C-alpha cells in the first residue's frame, strides 16, 4: 500500500513547484497508473516514493510506514525501475543481479529460481554473463526489471517500464504486473501509453502542473471528464491548459 499525504516538492528554492500538495492512495492488490504530460511531476513523485528525493512537505507511507523515518523498512519492501536504465556498465548482468540479491537479502534457492525464470521470460540467458556495457537499451531495461522481479517485493514502483521493450517482453511484464497484484501486491507505474493504462490499470491518476487533476477507475474518470470516449480523450481534456 502506498499513501501520499499532502506531498509537495519544489526546485530552485521554491521557484518551480514540481509537485503540489499531492494526496493519493494505492491499495494492496491494485495496479495504479500515473499519467501526465512531460514535466507534470510524475518522475518527481515516483522518486519521492522510493526515497531518491525528499519531499519538502507531506508524508509518504509505504505499507503503513513513513518512508523518511523508516527508510530502510520501506526500501526493503519496494522495488523500483527508473525511466532510464542507468546501471553499472562494468558489471556483468549476473553480477548486477547478485548485487541486488545480496542487498535485498534474497536466499540463494529463491534467487536461482527467480533469475532462471525471468532470464527465460526476457530472453536474456545468453547475455547475462556479459558486461552490461554490451547490452542494448532494451536489454538494459530487461536486466533492471529482472533485478526488481528477483526481489519479489510487496510494492513495485515503475517509471515508464515499457519503454524500449519488445512486444514479447512487454507482454511478459504486463502478465507479471497483473500476477503480482492478484497476489495482493501493490503496483504504481507511470506511462505515456494510454492503451496500456486503459487495459492494465485498476485505477488511474492524472497529474498536471504538479497537482492531481483526476483520479479513479476508468469509468469514474469518464464521468469526471463528461466523456465516454477513450482515455486519450479524457487525458487531453484534463491536461489541455
Amino acid at each position, binding site marked *: 500500500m502506498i499513501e501520499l499525504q499532502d506531498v509537495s516538492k519544489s526546485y530552485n528554492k521554491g521557484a518551480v513547484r514540481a509537485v503540489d500538495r499531492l494526496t493519493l492512495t494505492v491499495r494492496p492488490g491494485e495496479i495504479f497508473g500515473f499519467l501526465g504530460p512531460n514535466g507534470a511531476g510524475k518522475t518527481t513523485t515516483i522518486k519521492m516514493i522510493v526515497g531518491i528525493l525528499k519531499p519538502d512537505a507531506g508524508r509518504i507511507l509505504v505499507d503503513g510506514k513513513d518512508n523518511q523515518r523508516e527508510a*530502510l523498512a520501506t526500501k526493503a519492501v519496494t522495488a523500483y525501475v527508473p525511466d532510464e536504465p542507468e546501471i*553499472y556498465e*562494468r558489471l556483468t548482468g*549476473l553480477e548486477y543481479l547478485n548485487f541486488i540479491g*545480496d542487498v535485498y537479502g534474497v536466499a540463494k534457492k529463491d*534467487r536461482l529460481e527467480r533469475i532462471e525464470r525471468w532470464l527465460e521470460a526476457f530472453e536474456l540467458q545468453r*547475455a547475462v554473463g556479459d558486461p552490461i556495457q554490451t547490452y542494448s537499451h532494451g536489454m538494459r531495461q530487461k536486466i533492471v526489471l529482472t533485478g526488481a522481479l528477483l526481489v519479489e517485493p510487496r510494492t513495485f514502483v515503475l517509471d515508464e517500464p515499457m519503454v524500449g521493450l519488445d512486444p514479447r517482453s512487454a507482454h511478459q511484464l504486463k502478465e507479471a504486473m497483473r500476477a503480482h497484484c492478484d497476489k495482493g501486491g501493490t503496483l504504481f507505474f507511470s506511462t505515456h501509453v494510454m492503451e496500456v493504462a486503459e487495459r492494465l490499470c485498476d485505477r488511474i491518476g492524472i497529474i498536471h502542473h504538479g497537482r492531481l487533476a483526476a483520479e479513479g477507475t476508468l469509468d469514474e474518470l469518464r464521468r469526471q471528464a463528461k466523456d465516454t470516449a477513450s482515455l486519450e480523450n479524457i487525458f487531453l481534456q484534463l491536461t489541455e491548459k
Partner: protein
Amino acid sequence: MKRTLALLRVALRSNFGLTLVRHRLLVEKRDRWMVPLILLGVAGFVPLVLAYIEFLKFMFDALQPAGQETTVLTLAILAGQLLVLIFGLYYVLSVFYFSRDLEFLVSLPVRPSEVMLSKFAVILVNEYLTTALIVIPAFVVFGLLAKRGPDYWVLAALVFLLLPVIPIALAGLLIVGMMRVVNVSRKKDFFILAGSLVLLAAALLAQFSLARTRDMGEVMSLFTARDGLVQVVGAKFPPCIWASRLLGEGLTVRGLGFLALFGGGSVVLLLLLMGIAERLFYRGLVGLGERAAGRRRLSKADLGARISAGRRPVRAVFGREWRLMNRTPLFLLNGIMSVVLVPVILLLALKAGDASGPLLALRSFGTMDAATEILIAAVFFTVCGTLNGTASSTYSREGRQFWLSKVIPVSPAQQTLGKFLHSYLVAALGTVAGAAVSVVLFRLGAGRLVPAILLSLIGGVFFSALSMTVDLARPLLKWMNPQKAIKQNLNVLIALALEIGLLFVLGYLIKAVRSAGLDGSGLIVAVFALLALLSAASLAFLFRFAEKRYPLIAA
C-alpha cells in the same frame, strides 16, 4: 570558422560548467557554503607555493654569479611541459575518446579535426590551471629579481599561453596513434591500459634520463659555460630552451628567432595533430564503445555456481566498488595503478638526484635517530597510499548510477563502510608499495619499518575517512567522462590540499612536542595514539554524516 568557434564555445562551457555553476550559485542559490570550503582547500597549497618561491629565489641568487640564472626559467618550463606530457597522456585519452558527448558530436556535420580542436581547447585550459602553480612563480621571481622591462612580462604571458600546446599535441599524436591500433582489437580495455602504461613508462624514462647524475668535473664545466645548465637541462626537450631563451633575450633579433621556433613549433605540431585527426581520429573512436560479447548461454549448473549464496550488504558494496574501479581503465590508472606508480616515480626522482624536502630526507636513512626515520618513513608510506583520488571520489564515481545506492535497503552508514574498506585497501596497498621500496633501496630495518607501517596504516584510516567526507559533502554525480569523476574532481584537489596541510600541521606539532622533551619511542606512541583518536573520530563522523547526507543528495 563559425562552426569551429561554436564547437569550441560549447565544449568549454559544458566542460567547465560555468553556466551550471552560475545557475547553482545565483539562481538556485545552492552550494554557496562550498565557496569558503574551496577557498580553504586552495589555501592548503599556500605553504607549498611559498616554499617553492623561496627555493626559486635561492636558486636565482646561487646561479646569477655564474650567469646561469635563466636556468630557473628553463627548469620551470621543462617541469611544466613534462607534467603536461606525462599526466596529459591519460587526460588526452579520456577527453579525446571517453567523453560521453562524442557519440553526439560524431553525428554532427563537422570535421573530425574540428571536434578534436574543441577537445584540445578543453585540455589546454585545464593545463593552464595545472602548470600555473609551477611556471608563474618562476616567471615572476625571475622577472622581479632580474629587473626585467615590460617586454619580458608580455613575452612571459605569451610563453605561458603557448607552453602546454607542444606537450598536449605530442601526447595527442601518441594517443591517436595508439587508439587507432587498439580499436581493431577485441580486448580494448586491456590494450588501452597496457598502451597507456607503455607510453607513461616511456615518458618517465625520458624525464629521468634528463636528470641523470653527473660527475663533479662535468658539473663544473656546465657552470663555466654561459647557459651551460640551460643547454643540459633542455637538451632532450628543445622547446623549453627556446622558451627560456626567448624570455632571457627579450625582444632582440635572437629573441625573435626563438619566438619563431617556439611559436612556430607549437603551431606546426597543432596543425600536424589536426591533420592526423582528419585521417585517424574517427577510426579510433567510432565503435570504441562496442565490446566483444560472448553471448554464451549459461547452463543451469553454471548459473547455480555463479549465483552468490548471499553476501552481507557491506561485502556486496565493497565487491561492487572493487569491480567498478578496476574495470574502468581511467579509474584504475588513477587509483590502484597510481599507488604503485607514486613510490616508483618518487624513487626514480630520488635516484636521479631530483628530490627535495622529505624525499631528500629519505636518502639520509641510516644517519638519523630512530624516531625521525620512523616518522619520515611513515609520512612517505602515507603519501604513497592516500595521495590518490580513490577515497576522495568514492561517491562521485557512482555518477548517474547513484540512484541505486539511494533505493537499496542498506543504510548509508553500511554503504559507506563498504566504500571505506575499498578505499582503505587501496591506501594499504600504497603503504605496502612504499614500504617495499624503502626496504629494497634504503635497507630500512624491521625495527623502524614496522612502527612506520603501523603509523601509516592508522594514518590511512584518518586520511581515507577525511577524503571520503569531502566527497560526500558534494559528490560530483553528473559527469560525462570518467576522468571528471576522479582527475578533474575538485573534491580530489580539496582532499589533497587538506591532507598536505594536515601533514604540515602534524609535522609542526611533532617538532613542538620534541622540543618540549618528548622523544624516542614515547613520541612514536604519542603520534600513534593521536592518529588512532583522529581515525576513530573521523570514521564516526563520516558514518553519521552519511546518514544525514544521503537523503539530501539528488540522484
